[in-house]
């Protein structure tokens, strides 16, 4: 293509002047000055409003890979399903069985989302999944995000609440390494506390590290294995859904 071979020195760089009719101008500069995430924020806001209007509460669940999202969600859903109509959507980079695990363990409606290898899910993808899933008959939609502490934090999905899991084996200094994720969540759950005795994990240090980044976050501790803390978590979620 001609344009590819265009030499820089052939160009006349004229700043865009209002009403200018400069015939020699070849390259025009369009100022954008906008965050790449801006459009996603707009779409997320629209989705949140749409869900609220339908009376559906969406909860976005994030963590590192393997922090116990699927296990904790099964335990949570089993505690809430008597009181709420729940649906679970699981995002996975490659085929995985998280959604069918949840469906089997809890009997609620579930959907597996394949996002084609991207490192996160954005508002537009979430909207498409929600439309395919059908949420009119639900009170609570739980979105299990991709196991990743970087990208999901940057992309508002349109959820009403963001929860993240920090599992004990990951260490109490995780908040220092992934500050954005710990800043954007309203609920931070320290998971797998049945393993505390085997790891050098201080609940005080972890709490202080989280508080420094996010003074308003609710911090809870659970073990999905022993059930410790699960009722408190279920109460918290119930309160948020009921508004």
């Amino acid at each position: 293509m001609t344009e590819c071979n265009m030499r820089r020195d052939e160009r006349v760089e004229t700043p865009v002047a209002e009403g200018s009719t400069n015939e020699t101008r070849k390259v025009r500069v369009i100022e954008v000055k906008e965050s790449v995430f801006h459009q996603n924020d707009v779409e997320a806001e629209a989705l949140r409003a749409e869900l609220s209007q339908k009376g559906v509460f969406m909860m976005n669940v994030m963590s590192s890979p393997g922090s116990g999202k699927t296990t904790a969600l099964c335990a949570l859903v089993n505690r809430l399903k008597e009181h709420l109509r729940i649906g679970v959507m699981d995002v996975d980079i490659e085929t995985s069985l998280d959604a069918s695990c949840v469906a089997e363990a809890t009997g609620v409606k579930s959907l597996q989302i394949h996002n084609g290898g991207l490192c996160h899910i954005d508002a537009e993808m979430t909207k498409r999944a929600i439309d395919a899933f059908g949420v009119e008959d639900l009170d609570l939609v739980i979105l299990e995000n991709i196991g990743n502490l970087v990208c999901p934090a940057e992309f508002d999905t349109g959820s009403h609440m963001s929860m993240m899991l920090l599992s004990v084996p990951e260490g109490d200094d995780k908040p220092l390494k992934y500050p954005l994720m710990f800043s954007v969540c309203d609920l931070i759950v320290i998971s797998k506390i049945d393993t505390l005795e085997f790891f050098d994990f201080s609940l005080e240090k972890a709490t202080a590290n989280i508080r420094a980044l996010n003074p308003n976050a609710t911090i809870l501790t659970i073990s999905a294995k022993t059930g410790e803390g699960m009722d408190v978590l279920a109460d918290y979620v119930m309160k948020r859904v009921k508004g």
Partner: protein
Amino acid sequence: MHELGVTFYVIKDVKKIAEDNNVYKVDSVTLEIGQVSGVIHEQLQDCWKWAIKKEPIMDCAKLLIEEIPAVTFCENCKKTYATVPQGKICPHCGSDRTYLTQGNEFNIKEIEVLDQPHEVILSEE
């Protein structure tokens, strides 16, 4: 990979701006990327070169990157310092009550566009 994901967002935004402005071709895209935004510039360039091939309106567009240095503010002594390599602990007073004031950006600053095929303009002169 993170860089590929963000490349698609940039392309989507630029394509929309280019179409809204009735441009012929996008010549270059300038990004402002914060020093601690976690994006690797070389990988972004590689993803860019690969991804724009599928977009006729910008299939030759150059990606220009301006880095915004990361700066941290200390609430304790009210001074600022360079986040890299210092980190969260204030070098002036040792406090950890600090927060990032800039360096996390990922903005499209501007795009340069051609309104007509280049050859046509040259032959007119």
